[in-house]
């Protein structure tokens, strides 16, 4: 029961061509099923392409969209994670990743962190999700689904694991950049991601499944390099960079138990400590409490709290720094 075959669909979606991409997803789900996969993972915005800009509204689907239902209908007896532009009832657009199982949409994760810096401009076109939840699945383990930039924030993999996920899944459209010869595997972006995923797998003692697209949207090239990392932090599988393909990886979910018994990091986690200190930092950043950790006379930028917080914050009585 603990053996799982994961299929990573490292594809190059056609930008804005929803129908073509839907067809390709259905074909690949069929292929993965024939190969005995229990979980098929597609990349971020695999149904629409990434660099959509104003096309985002034109390819958006509501969760009750019949096209999504038709895709879900293909998942009888297996689990698939697909990604698309979701239009909410109030017409906000989200970058969504959905877990489709046994013919139904089982769970939807809306991308929490929308990079809007450097070559990214996501916040201009999309709304950020507000909810992070692990989800049960037909695989018998909790899944923690995140989208690309979500994994550049430490709290996301940590919260998913604490919430019950034993397999963390990140779906990405990561643009490759920095070809400096000193990089591992010749690409700075790949080096960073590989470091993150191994670290998260080890620290959460969970499987990390990473599915990244390939192909080209406008100026940017997506580098693939999809991976499955074992709970020990060791790579179970690394797909080639830039090659399109459906890659099968066999894992034993019993590895999660073994690692968590041997290395009980999650058991020893101090949630109340984190919650308490986070509460304090939130209050201090909001100017509702004086910055208790700033050294007197600390230079600007050398402490996490704003240096010029009001001495007597509004609504905080007479508390002030002495």
């Amino acid at each position, binding site marked *: 029961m603990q053996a799982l075959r994961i299929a990573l669909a490292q594809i*190059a979606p*056609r*930008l*804005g*061509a929803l129908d073509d991409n839907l067809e390709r997803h259905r074909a690949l789900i069929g292929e993965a099923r024939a190969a005995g996969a229990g979980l098929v993972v597609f990349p971020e915005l695999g149904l629409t392409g990434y*660099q*959509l*800009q*104003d*096309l985002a509204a034109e390819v958006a689907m509501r969760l009750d969209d019949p096209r999504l239902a038709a895709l879900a209908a293909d998942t009888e007896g297996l689990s698939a994670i697909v990604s698309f532009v979701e239009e909410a009832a109030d017409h906000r657009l989200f970058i969504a990743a959905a877990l489709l199982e046994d013919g139904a949409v089982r769970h939807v994760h809306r991308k929490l962190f929308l990079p809007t810096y450097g070559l990214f401009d996501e916040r201009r076109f999309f709304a950020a999700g507000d909810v992070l939840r692990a989800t049960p699945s037909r695989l018998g383990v909790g899944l923690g689904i995140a989208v690309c930039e979500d994994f550049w924030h430490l709290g996301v993999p940590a919260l998913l694991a604490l919430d019950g996920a034993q397999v963390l899944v990140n779906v990405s459209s990561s643009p*490759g950049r920095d*070809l*400096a*010869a*000193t*990089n591992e*595997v*010749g*690409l700075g972006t790949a080096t960073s991601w590989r470091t993150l995923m191994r670290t998260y797998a080890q620290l959460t003692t969970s499987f990390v499944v990473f599915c990244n697209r*390939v*192909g*080209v*949207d*406008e100026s940017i*090239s997506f580098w693939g390099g999809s991976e499955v990392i074992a709970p020990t932090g060791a790579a179970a599988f690394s797909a080639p*960079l*830039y090659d399109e393909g459906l890659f099968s990886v066999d894992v034993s979910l019993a590895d999660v138990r073994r690692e968590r018994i041997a290395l009980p990091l999650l058991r020893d986690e101090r949630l109340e400590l984190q919650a308490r200190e986070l509460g304090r930092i939130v209050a201090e950043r909001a100017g509702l409490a004086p910055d208790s950790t700033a050294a007197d006379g600390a230079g600007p930028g050398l402490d996490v709290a704003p240096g010029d917080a009001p001495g007597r914050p509004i609504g905080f009585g007479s508390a002030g720094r002495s």
Partner: protein
Amino acid sequence: MTESAPAYELPVELAIDTDVARRVIGEFIRRQLGQAGFERALLGLSGGIDSALVAYLTAEAIGAERLLCVSMPYRTSSDASRSDAAEVVGRLGCPLETVDISPMVDGYFSDADGASPIRRGNLMARMRMAVLYDRSVTWGGLVVGTGNKTESLIGYTTLFGDSACAFNPIGDLYKSQVRQLAAAIGVPDGIIRKAPSADLWPGQTDEAEAGFLYPVLDRILFWRIDKRRSIDEVVALGFERTLIERVDRMVAAAEFKRQVPPIAKLGPRTAGVDYLYPRRRPGSARR
């Protein structure tokens, strides 16, 4: 074994993984053509390293038979340029067309002595652009750009001339990196070694005209722009402050050459401002 002098100087911080670069660029070329509905490409082959490298990369990506190289000499162009262009075409096995632009240029400047070298050079670059875009129709292919990052940043390029193209595979590579990639892909040694020149008049070289060497210029640009170092921090790396400041001024002065011209904002949706679509989207490819 004999050791020969290296064909070029490669500052260590600029060294790239050339295998990854070839992989990315090859896919970039194929996808740019595919998304536009084209199978063929063409470029202006000068005999210099930039266009030679792009010819090699394009031939590698789509096959030499799908690449048309167009040689467009002016009557003062050096013989070496023509023979180097011929060598590239010979080695790649791609078709070559030669169009002498002398009658076009000389027909415009009726008083040949009255026009400055800058005006003449700019007109030559724009005549070559016009020829390439005309040939793109007869050949049925897209014009591939051959400008590098160094010349784009300092503005050593003619607006709507040599910078005009459908897409550019090497526009994010500094000259030193162009040399590294050219050596890796097999561009003839003589082309890599010779002094870079716009070949607008006999004996002209980029480095003599600008007053600095490419490896130095590339390093200053890399630290200032890519690595966001302050002038003081770049001085600390061993560069002259006056040179850094001069490079900064050149980069700032050329900003307009790297951008699409602004449109006066009047209506509800304006291209490039609040009408933002990918260049290639469903329905945009030629039939």
